[in-house]
């Protein structure tokens, strides 16, 4: 609240003996400090009863009292002062929220001289105090005051107040009203400014939204382009190699994945096949996947680590162990992102059914023997690629029988979590593949994917799911 004009400027009255009745220690301290600074002597009581005792002990020159207090309210305290012959002419200021018209009548009834509405500025109160001290109440007038009966809100009050007292109260009430009105006007102006600013902000938001839509559209285009590049790492949908039946499924959990797989002819007799799983998801992982993919190409080139031109002009096929070791060398542990990948890479000699393979931290492949018998897991030791610098990877050999099926997959299959965080697991996976052994290869791959997706309901898989099935049909 601003200092009301005409009150603060009233003559300098210093060294006044002030008594404060206030139950809030904090409020009292603030007021006391301000009054002391203005050169007044201040006493403080935390309730009306104590305040009355202090007033009787030494007559103050002015009293400032809160209304709501435990043990004698401001009204009771005021009434006691105003009916005490020794104290009755001490000016009494009530601190009120003036939330109800009845407060004014109650104040009059109690004999208060002035109101200051809460919350108040100490300076404003100081101005009121000085104005009140400048016009002391005449003892004679007090004595001559008539008793009036006032009805308000269904209650009758016996008000005995002098003319000046009534005038003081009315003026202070009116000042309060004027001051509140000014505050309202200011608040209204501020509101109007805020509304203009809100409208401006709204316009800016609209334009920002348009900008975001534009950027978003750009990102979607970029992602689509990137996803297309990733698709180029995968086999053709109708991939077909002599002596083999092939089926594969690949479901990235984001638009960009860290998984990829491929199967292709390396030379006249050998086929290369792999599943790679780069840790993490999204752009960094997919970029690494694309980079890894450049090296895993069956075309003789500078970048291929699978095949190279021999001295005799023939194609030389690298062993799986060489491929894993070389990849680990090329992808020196990335200190910035901590990205790494797991891989199972195999070279299948189609005429003989001999599969050499190496793995780097990758789940074991599953064989479903054509002769019957339980599904077998064939894994290989080896840390994930780009995890431990300069290690040598070993390789394993698996002799296939005609009609044998092998399945390579990413950990998105066995590690798929259901609602209770339970993993799908190797056993269910093997059982699912086993159940599909009499049907077509593509059917068994499809069934496994469906089983994994069903396992993860309702949210669906949180990881990329990649499955590559191969049947040897010499």
């Amino acid at each position, binding site marked *: 609240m601003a200092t009301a004009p005409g009150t603060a400027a009233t003559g300098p009255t210093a060294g006044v003996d002030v008594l404060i009745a206030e139950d809030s220690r904090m409020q009292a301290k603030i007021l006391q400090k301000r009054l002391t600074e203005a050169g007044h002597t201040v006493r403080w009581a935390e309730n009306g009863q104590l305040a009355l005792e202090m007033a009787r002990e030494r007559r103050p020159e002015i009293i400032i009292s809160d209304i709501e207090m435990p043990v004698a309210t401001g009204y009771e305290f005021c009434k006691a002062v105003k009916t005490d012959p020794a104290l009755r002419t001490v000016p009494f200021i009530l601190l009120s929220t003036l939330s109800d018209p009845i407060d004014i009548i109650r104040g009059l009834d109690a004999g208060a001289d002035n109101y200051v509405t809460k919350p108040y500025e100490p300076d404003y109160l100081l101005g009121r105090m000085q104005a009140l001290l400048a016009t002391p109440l005449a003892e004679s007038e007090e004595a001559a005051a008539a008793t009036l009966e006032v009805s308000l809100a269904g209650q009758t009050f016996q008000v005995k107040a002098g003319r000046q007292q009534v005038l003081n109260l009315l003026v202070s009430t009116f000042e309060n009203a004027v001051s509140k009105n000014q505050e309202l006007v200011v608040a209204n102006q501020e509101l109007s400014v805020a509304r203009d600013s809100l409208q401006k902000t709204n316009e800016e938001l609209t334009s920002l939204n348009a900008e975001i839509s534009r950027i978003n559209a750009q990102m979607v285009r970029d992602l689509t382009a990137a996803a297309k590049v990733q698709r180029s790492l995968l086999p053709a949908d109708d991939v077909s190699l002599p002596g083999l039946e092939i089926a594969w499924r690949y479901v990235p959990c984001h638009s960009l994945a860290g998984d990829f797989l491929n199967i292709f002819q390396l030379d006249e007799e050998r086929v290369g096949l792999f599943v790679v799983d780069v840790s993490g998801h999204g752009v960094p992982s997919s970029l690494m996947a694309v980079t890894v993919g450049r090296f895993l190409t069956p075309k003789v080139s500078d970048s291929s680590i699978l095949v190279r031109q021999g001295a005799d002009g023939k194609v030389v096929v690298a062993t799986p162990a060489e491929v894993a070791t070389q990849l680990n060398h090329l992808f020196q542990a990335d200190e910035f992102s*901590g990205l790494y990948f797991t891989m199972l890479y195999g070279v299948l000699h189609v005429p003989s059914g001999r599969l050499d393979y190496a793995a780097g931290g*990758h789940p074991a492949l599953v064989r479903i023997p054509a002769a019957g018998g339980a599904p077998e897991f064939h894994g290989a030791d*080896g840390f994930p690629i780009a995890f431990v610098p300069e290690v040598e990877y070993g390789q394993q050999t698996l002799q296939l029988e005609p009609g044998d099926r092998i399945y390579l997959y990413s*950990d998105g299959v066995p590690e798929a979590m259901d609602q209770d965080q339970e993993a799908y697991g190797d056993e269910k996976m093997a059982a699912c593949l086993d159940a599909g052994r009499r049907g077509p290869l593509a059917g068994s791959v499809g069934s496994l994917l469906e089983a994994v997706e069903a396992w993860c309901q309702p949210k669906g898989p949180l990881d990329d799911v990649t499955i590559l099935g191969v049947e040897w049909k010499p």
Partner: protein
Amino acid sequence: MDQFRRIQTGKKGDIFLVLFKDKKILDDTMLDEIRTELAQLLGKASGPDVLLDFSQVEFMSSAMLGLLGQLHRKISSGQGRLKMCGIRPEIFQVFKLTNLDKLFSIHKDAPTALATFT
């Protein structure tokens, strides 16, 4: 010493004790925070001995392994030792699947792990 959001830290002699506070270590943002906090903790130490306690962790992504690999390489290159403890079976499975149970020094609980530092 506990000024971190993702890890709770302590010291036993010269050994840094690190407890991961999160139940789930999943997204990249969280991994970045853990990486930063570990770097702050170990920044000045050369070849420190570190014990990572996973007893609060119920689930973690495979990307967390990458972070552990970075840490392992950094600590080993400085002649320090990195050990881990309190790993639940479900999470141990992630280590096993990637053969990393053979790379990392993994112990049942903190007292068992601490005893192996001597």
